[in-house]
């Protein structure tokens, strides 16, 4: 799966959890914190995108990226390993 496809899964998960952002045009350098998404919602987004990708990795391994592009890259590298 390409990083772009993963990015699309990611943005659809964000909209599932935070529908108020449906007008937003997501970019790779967007940060969920800067978009005003709270910590519980951020965790829900991660859980949801991992489910969509059928990726079984510890949630804690998704910690670190500073923006959506970095998160998509991380998820792509994890999906290639698992």
């Amino acid at each position, binding site marked *: 799966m390409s990083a772009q496809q993963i990015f699309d899964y990611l943005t659809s998960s964000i909209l599932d959890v935070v529908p108020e952002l449906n007008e937003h045009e997501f970019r790779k350098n967007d940060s969920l914190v800067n978009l005003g998404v709270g910590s519980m919602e951020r*965790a829900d987004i991660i859980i949801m995108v991992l489910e969509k990708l059928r990726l079984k990795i*510890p949630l*804690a391994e998704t910690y670190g990226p500073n923006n959506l592009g970095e998160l998509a890259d991380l998820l792509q590298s994890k999906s290639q390993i698992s």
Partner: protein
Amino acid sequence: MVEVGIEDMHFFGGNAYLDVSELADYRQLNPDRFAKLLIKEKTVPLLSEDPITFAVNAAKPIIDGLSAKDIDSIELLITCTESGIDFGKSISTYVHDYLGLSKNCRMFELKQACYSGTAGFQMAVNFILSQTSPGAKALVIATDLSRHTVEKGKDVSVMDWSYAEPSTGAGAVALLVSEIPSIFKVDVGANGYYGYEVMDTCRPLADSEAGNADLSLLSYLDCCEKAFLEYAKRINQVCYKNSFQYLAFHTPFGGMVKGAHRSNMRKILGASPIEIDEDFNNRVLPGLNYCQRVGNIMGATVLLSLLSTICNSDFRLSKRIGCFSYGSGCCSEFYSGVVDASDAQRLRKELIEAQLDGRYQLTVDEYEDLLSDNSNVSFGTRNCELEKYAPSNYISSELATPQLFLKKIKDFHREYTWTT
């Protein structure tokens, strides 16, 4: 095999508190985000209160209810804390003295962040089950507090501990563990533990906290699922919903528990949002009640959630409670036990609630003064007089029960006295 569990338990939640919404306004936290944390009040320790006074005040009503023979049968005292006052001397030595326990008693202090209370409880359970001293009892006291210091006028948001300020509190829960599990009969062998190294939240410096709330949340959620799955491997036909009439969680703040419950219900049972909300209100909410009044009391929090569940639920029939404990760093565990109808009423619900209701409400200005005064009792204080901070100087009405408070520190030795 002998039965084992909690013969008696009690909680002490301090003498002063802050309405956390006032603090949130003052610190200009985002109101929408703050509301989702489900935090109401936090106990703020006075300078005359420390982990020892909290521990002794939690255990005293239990000890007062025992015969001299039963007191002498307490052969194990474990204090569980991440708020120790000395690298060598355990706070259990002071607690042992002020509770008047037998000198033929093992005593020590145990640490693993917010998991410490469960670690102590499980060690006590195994001491009883080992039957190396038949009839012996164990006293386990989880006691923790956050005491931050900042110079007046300095920006709190730059401090390492600022992320945790609204949620951290102070309090202690004492458990008498024995072969007479009147309050909570442990399901022996029904334990799922799960842990690994992670740098989420920690106390690398005295009187401070550091870490990353996001990483801690993700680690907590991982453990909440994995500890239960390990439990389920060991117990045939267990169901996350039907096997437990209530669930008690380690409660850093209510919003985190709500998220963890939602995640487990969805992952383990595939439950719908409506089902999850209803289940949360029925099985989880009773355990949040007392936790929301004192804040996160770390090692004692899951035990407070257990106590809150028992005091605020219907036990006309015997019911099973599943407990999830998490301590940063990290170690976690899911375990369970049964509460019987008649015995749950032995708990001192009225005393617990009178004590919480009787606390002094600090204004934000008074709270800020305490943050500055806290430097008088920072870790390693050699000498200090503390009578002016005695609880009676804050609370004009009669205290629910006599309390121990810290009178002075003299050459590092702490001297306590009882309120009259």
